[in-house]
């Protein structure tokens, strides 16, 4: 039925995901089925998607097909083009790793009271939904897949529903996902209003007036931005992502957010052809805000998974800055620079998927062996969980955008794109864009601070609580999964030119031309614009690092006494330090909290309890709550209170309503 092998492969991946969902109900009786059946199937589906994506990318072709589902006059169209393929690769990579990891991770739940059926089934549906979103080629199947994704992930958020916090998070999440979905639907409606049909081909053909194009863009930004957790629509994200089981959190933060990015790119760059430079400015502004707010709140967190969730907000912000640059350049007819920015955005999307999933898996490993999410209870884990520790370190280095790891490459590309602002005609934009990139720089530095804090508090120093002191290394499957992702982090960092040549077809597909001479000076040298303008050689960097370090070590081995004597820490000669004397997560963040106090609602107090012990309480909340969410809720409540007067309870009043309605209508029609 479907000619193209890679597309059928991708659809087969969807089927595998559904199969893993189908296996799950049996797990209710035989818990082992989840580990032996559902999760491996999930991993296989991921691998399948990975293969399909790589195949399409290398071939650079695109294939489409029609499935016998959906409305009679609107069957399901599916299509696999380079853009979709990249995101298939992204989903596939992470899901494969999760497949390895999950097998050992879900073992915990076999003893718990929460329904394994729900866990396995909805994980499968979740993956199937994400794959279908990427493959969709008409608005209807896109929406179906999109909402399936939201719904399944909602059930996974509500998985451990006995804590009230999780229920609240799930409700907030589903509500905002629903609103976002409606906005997206409306956006498609606008396009279809001009395009005639709901398949992407005719949406693409739509000729929009600038006003309606703007409306469609705004709706897309609202809908996808809500899912991508852009400030100020991010409130659900730090609530929902942490409470899901960790391997699901990895999928949600690492992959689902990227699916939102995919949708945005698909709608704005592909379907809604006519771009306007102001959109780019809007994106850069919102992206910058999200990046800054995200990282600052991440820095303030003490719950590891919550911290990671906030840092996702920050990274999505960076991605949208890059997308904004792409729009800006595209609208001002510098499509080669637009291509650079777009590729940078995609590159960062891939990278974030890799290291954020890696970090969430690491957090899950910690949770698994210490049952602890609070940083202030951790410490010294590197020596107790060496594998997890080293992989987590790679994750931290990558997310902090340090050379020679992958995060650095993509941020470097974004900087390069931003620095091409001198090509723009308008002086205002010429000066605004670099300022935005200064925000990016600030963000980068704060991210580094954040992850120094995370790693230093969690993995270094001394254990701050008993059960952390007793932590055991995590089982093999779990660190294999992390190792896979860590390896890819390094790989993506060291071979940027190859990755770029893989991403190039998308720029060609969406913008007409790709990044011209990214590897002009050979594969060693990454020169996105030209060799004179900027160059970076990751392979040589890592080579030289290794050489110099090796030389130094050799020299020491020969020249000095290599032996190292162990002793108590000196600590300026004070008494040998106890774990409680270490800096905590909160105290580490204190200087920055004080500098940026403006952004936070800080509730800080010292309370002396009944037991005479004085405790320090610190609660940092988001300003958007007071500014946006609570007022909305209050409005609805008061409106419903007003409306309730209709139901006064007296039958005579009801009859009065009937009479009034009748008279009013008669009066209207008699006019």
């Amino acid at each position, binding site marked *: 039925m479907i000619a193209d092998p890679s597309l059928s492969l991708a659809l087969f991946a969807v089927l595998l995901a559904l199969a893993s969902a189908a296996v799950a109900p049996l797990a209710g009786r035989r818990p082992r089925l989840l580990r032996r059946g559902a999760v491996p199937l999930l991993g296989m589906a991921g691998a399948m998607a990975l293969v399909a994506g790589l195949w399409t990318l290398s071939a650079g072709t695109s294939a489409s097909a029609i499935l016998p589902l959906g409305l009679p006059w609107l069957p399901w169209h599916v299509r696999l083009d380079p853009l979709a393929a990249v995101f298939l690769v992204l989903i596939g990579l992470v899901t494969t790793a999760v497949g390895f990891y999950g097998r050992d991770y879900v073992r915990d739940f076999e003893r718990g009271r929460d329904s394994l059926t729900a866990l396995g089934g909805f994980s499968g549906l979740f993956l199937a939904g994400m794959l279908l979103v990427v493959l969709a080629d008409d608005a209807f199947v896109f929406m179906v897949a999109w909402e399936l994704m939201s719904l399944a992930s909602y059930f996974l958020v509500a998985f451990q529903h006995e804590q009230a916090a999780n229920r609240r998070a799930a409700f907030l999440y589903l509500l905002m996902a629903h609103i976002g979905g409606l906005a997206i639907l409306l956006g498609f409606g606008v396009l279809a209003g001009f395009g005639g049909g709901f398949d992407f081909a005719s949406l693409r053909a739509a000729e929009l007036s600038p006003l309606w194009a703007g409306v469609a863009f705004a709706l897309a930004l609202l809908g996808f931005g809500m899912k991508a957790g852009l400030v100020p629509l991010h409130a659900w994200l730090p609530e929902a992502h942490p409470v899901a089981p960790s391997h699901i959190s990895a999928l949600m933060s690492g992959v689902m957010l990227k699916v939102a990015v995919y949708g945005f790119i698909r709608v704005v760059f592909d379907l809604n052809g006519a771009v306007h430079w102001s959109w780019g400015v809007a994106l850069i502004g919102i992206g910058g805000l999200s990046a800054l707010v995200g990282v600052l709140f991440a820095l303030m967190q003490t719950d590891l998974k919550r911290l990671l969730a906030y840092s996702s907000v920050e990274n999505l912000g960076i991605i949208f800055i890059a997308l904004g640059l792409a729009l800006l350049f595209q609208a001002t007819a510098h499509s080669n620079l637009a291509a650079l920015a777009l590729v940078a955005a995609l590159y960062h999307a891939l990278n974030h998927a890799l290291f954020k999933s890696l970090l969430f898996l690491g957090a899950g490993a910690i949770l698994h062996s210490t049952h602890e999410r609070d940083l202030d209870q951790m410490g010294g884990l590197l020596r107790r969980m060496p594998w997890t520790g080293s992989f987590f370190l790679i994750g931290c280095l990558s997310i902090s955008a340090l050379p020679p790891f992958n995060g650095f490459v993509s941020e470097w590309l974004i900087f390069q794109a931003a620095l091409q602002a001198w090509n723009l005609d308008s002086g205002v934009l010429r000066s605004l864009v670099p300022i935005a990139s200064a925000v990016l720089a600030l963000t980068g530095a704060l991210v580094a601070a954040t992850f120094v804090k995370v790693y230093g508090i969690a993995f270094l120093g001394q254990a701050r609580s008993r059960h952390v002191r007793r932590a055991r290394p995590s089982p093999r499957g779990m660190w294999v999964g992390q190792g896979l992702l860590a390896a890819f982090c390094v790989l993506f960092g060291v071979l940027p030119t190859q990755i770029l040549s893989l991403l190039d077809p998308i720029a060609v597909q969406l913008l007409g031309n790709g990044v011209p001479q990214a590897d002009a000076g050979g594969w060693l040298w990454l020169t996105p614009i030209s060799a004179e303008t900027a160059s970076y050689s990751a392979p040589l960097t890592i080579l030289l690092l290794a050489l110099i370090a090796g030389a130094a070590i050799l020299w020491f081995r020969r020249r000095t006494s290599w032996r190292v004597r162990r002793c108590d820490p000196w600590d300026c000669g004070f008494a040998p330090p106890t774990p409680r004397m270490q800096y905590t997560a909160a105290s580490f963040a204190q200087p920055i909290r004080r500098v940026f106090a403006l952004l936070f609602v800080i509730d800080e107090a010292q309370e002396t309890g009944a037991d005479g012990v004085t405790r320090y309480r610190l609660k940092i909340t988001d300003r958007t709550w007071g500014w946006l969410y609570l007022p909305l809720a209050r409005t*609805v*409540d008061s409106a*419903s209170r007003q409306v309730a007067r209709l139901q006064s309870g007296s039958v005579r009043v009801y009859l009065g*309503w009937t009479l009034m309605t009748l008279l009013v209508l008669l009066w209207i029609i008699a006019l």
Partner: protein
Amino acid sequence: MTALLLTLLTPLIGGLALFLVRALAPAGWLNLAVSGLTLLGSLWLAWTVAQVEVIAGLGFRVDAFNVYLIVLTAFVGLTTAIFSRPYMQYVQASGRISVLNLRLYHSLYQAFMLTMLVALTTDNLGVLWVAVEGATLATVLLVSLYRTPEAVEAAWKYFILCGVGIALALFGTVLTYFAAQLVLADTEAGLTWSVLHAHAAALDPTVMRIAFVFLLVGYGTKVGLVPMHQWLPDAHSEGPTPMSAVLSGLLLNVALYAVVRLKMLVDGSLAATDTPHLAGALLMGFGLVSFMVAALFLHRQRDIKRLFSYSSIEHMGLMTFAFGLGGPLATFGALLHMLVHSLTKSAIFVTVGHATHLAGTQSIERIRGLIRTQPTIGWSLLFGVVAIAGFPPFGVFTSEFLLLTATMQTHPWLTLVLLSGLAIAFAGLFRHLHPMVYGTAPDGQAPVTANLLPVFVHLGLVLWLGLAIPDFLAHWLNRATALIAGGGVL
């Protein structure tokens, strides 16, 4: 024709017979059998209609529009009967109802089915009126079945409001008859819908306008359009749960069906005037108001059955709006929405029946942690609400998708209202649903023997409709659309 007679006579005879059966168990089974037979008859009817487009005679007329509602009615009637058999046994065991009333219940159940089927099949506006009024009379005693003060109060309000509404509808009917007499040769045919529809253009617009207002207010009361809706939540919450299921799932549909039929007449007669879309505009207005108001009401419910009856008002509002919108796409969507809403909503009410049985109360505060206590009920309720909230891959999403896109094409700015309404309604449903299904189970609540077959069947169908609309159904609805909107979508 025989199929038609089978469909109509079965409930009639069954109803009479059921009044004679004293013992409960056989009554339940007999009720089941009668409903099954009715369903068979309706299917046969549908099949014949599929062959010959239209069956007419004896003042009856069955075409694509009403035949699918007939089948739906019979189907939901059957599944509800399946649920009601054990449920009423539990009710009797709990001693809330006397044997006489139980007999009354079963025979009135069939009488109710009968009136609805007559209302759907008849071609005569007068008979239509009689049947709808009959439906009220048949159900009003069932609402007060438990004899609690609340039940009696609810029944009285239901009776008075619907009685008045129906009386107004009759006045509209008389006016229509009057308008018809001025143009028609044989005055006897002046209430025959098909004849009127044929001569719609000739009917005097002034009279028809006034007539339509009365008909709209009258039948609209039964549809549950704000501000004539006040009876609906009371009646739903105080009556026995099977009744709520059929009221929400079927009676509202029938009333809406009547409104749509009459709108077709009025459109015909107003086509030439300067306000050709008056009827549509009125429907849109009522629909939108009902939709928004009901969505807001959802937020302050304490009784689970009231909650879902408001959700019914909301969806009826949506359908009314869509029919008012007119045009093939919207009409198709509205017809589809009628279908999926009846299936989903009756499924929800069945589940709610079990949930209230389990918790021993209807108050939302006391229904907690269903998934822990009895996973099947908890998940069914959860999925039912997810479906009614319009999440894919359930069919409600498909119809709402169509409605929204149709609105988008003609009245883009109204979609914003619709979307905000959908969001508000969603929040209203889930803020109550969450604590009910999730969380730890309260002590002293034990699982009950639940027969969830109807729920699974209904939700399965809705799921199927969401994933793919089978061809025969598509063409069926398309023919109905062509009948109403003058053109199909296929």
